């Protein structure tokens, strides 16, 4: 009995002793920490994905206190920026358009069949090691889902056709799938990007024809039709889109004979006409037009679209607040029409090619 009592006394005294010591130490050696760090950490997603360039959310939170920009967290998106802005009392710079991952290959199991049966480990990186993969096209997407495995946000999934599909809502452009993809067929582009060249095969046309029904055969129709100087170039048997130049007019998608180029709004593309009665001369469309095809810009001067220069990108239609732009005229479908109309965006000049 006394042994139990002694045990209790010893242990309790030990506990009390340590408790007091810790309590005193906590007061004596108290270190002030910025309470904002905890607040910022709370409003970050906590995925520790590293998209901001810091080793984790905690490290980014500390950096924000020290003056780092508050718009570095892509997974957090607008909510995180707003929350961080509230804590730090500052606003983010011009809001960049949200980006998402796009797959630039359309060769699903039907269009680009398998040339052999692969029964090994289900991983694109592994398949690539075995004679360049089991797919007819050795450049395209294998569809074994390395991107799906690595995605921390459950935003990319391999569909039944053997190609991954990106969930626009869930994708945060953290870039993990882009790194994981051994074929480099995933890219990050703004969520509102409309036109994309979806082929990366550099082989000669003869081989591409055999391998894939939607592969680029380097016919250079898109290159010739493209109304923007330098937006599409032909490199090594492949049409390459230069995203910073491209204005999303979709003419390339319209002329491509193999449907290697996709256009989200291909059905809508028309030549717009401005309704004079509704036009308010607000200059919004004038400023937005990428090829200077709209007359106006002076006070009270109603806008008119120069039909011979318009490329039908619909930027003016999207931006008009007065519903004054009607999409009525069909856009010419022949390459001949666009062949000579190159617009140089740096000089602002229409050049004959």
């Amino acid at each position: 009995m006394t042994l139990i009592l002694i045990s209790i006394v010893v242990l309790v005294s030990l506990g009390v002793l340590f408790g007091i010591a810790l309590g005193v130490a906590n007061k004596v050696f108290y270190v002030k920490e910025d309470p904002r760090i905890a607040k910022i950490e709370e409003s970050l997603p906590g995925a520790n994905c590293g998209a901001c360039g810091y080793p984790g959310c905690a490290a980014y939170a500390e950096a924000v206190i020290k003056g780092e920009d508050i718009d570095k967290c892509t997974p957090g998106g607008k909510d995180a920026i707003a929350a961080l802005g509230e804590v730090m009392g500052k606003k983010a710079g011009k809001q960049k358009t949200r980006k998402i991952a796009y797959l630039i290959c359309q060769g699903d199991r039907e269009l680009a069949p398998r040339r052999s049966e692969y029964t090994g480990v289900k991983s694109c990186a592994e398949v690539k090691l075995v004679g360049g993969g089991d797919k007819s096209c050795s450049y395209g997407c294998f569809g074994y889902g390395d991107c799906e495995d690595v995605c921390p946000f459950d935003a990319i999934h391999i569909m039944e056709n053997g190609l991954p599909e990106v969930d626009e809502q869930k994708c945060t452009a953290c870039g993990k799938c882009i790194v994981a993809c051994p074929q480099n067929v995933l890219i990050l582009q703004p969520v509102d990007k409309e036109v994309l060249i979806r082929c990366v095969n550099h082989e000669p046309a003869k081989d591409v024809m055999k391998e894939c029904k939607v592969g680029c055969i380097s016919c250079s129709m898109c290159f010739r039709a493209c109304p923007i100087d330098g937006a599409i170039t032909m490199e090594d048997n492949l049409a390459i889109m230069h995203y910073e130049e491209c204005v999303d007019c979709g003419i390339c998608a319209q002329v491509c004979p193999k449907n290697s180029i996709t256009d989200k709004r291909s059905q809508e593309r028309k030549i717009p006409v401005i309704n004079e009665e509704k036009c308010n001369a607000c200059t919004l469309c004038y400023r937005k037009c990428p090829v200077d095809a709209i007359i106006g810009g002076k006070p009270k001067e109603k806008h008119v679209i120069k039909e011979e220069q318009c490329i039908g990108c619909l930027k003016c239609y999207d931006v008009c607040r007065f519903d004054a732009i009607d999409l009525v005229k069909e856009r010419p479908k022949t390459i001949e029409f666009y062949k000579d109309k190159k617009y140089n965006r740096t000089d602002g000049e229409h050049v004959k090619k």
Partner: protein
Amino acid sequence: MDFGRLFVIAISAIFVNNFVLARFLGICPYLGVSKKWDSALGMGIAVIFVMTLASFITWIVQHFLLAPPSGKYDLTDILQTIAFILTIAALVQFVEIVMKKAMPDLYKALGIYLPLITTNCAILGVTLLNIKNDYNLIESIVFGISAGVGFTLALLMMASIRERLESAKVPKVFKGIAIALIVAALMSLSFTGFSGLIAE
């Protein structure tokens, strides 16, 4: 003081009875924190630090509280484990608080590893073995330091191997923890070669 005995204790704790590879204590951090050399070093130093302090404090707790020199009572059997865990946990907390204030750089370098090793079985193992082997205070401290050094040695070796494994062609089924366990087993096997070093 018998330096020969201290030397034997040290060599025994570092090589012959290496805590990780021969006694199989502290396996969790051994596999968990051995992916990068830098973090392994941080963890190792933290362990050496805490083991030394813990050896010191628990020896005092044992010989003045649990089994006082007066010999009136002996609580070793009932209270030793729980009292030591309590002591180590409080000690690590205390060290952390002090370090944060006095040595913020070291605190940052040790980072998460310091609180992590509070519940490390290797620490408790050192303190229990100190008592079991009837070491005196000096011997306990030496044993604590060398046990920590042995742990760090094993951890750093493991980290070096695993860093190279990263770039080696490992079959996918063996990737990650599987190959790490195989490496651990081989290292443990090779450390049995030290067992003939000390003839008791």
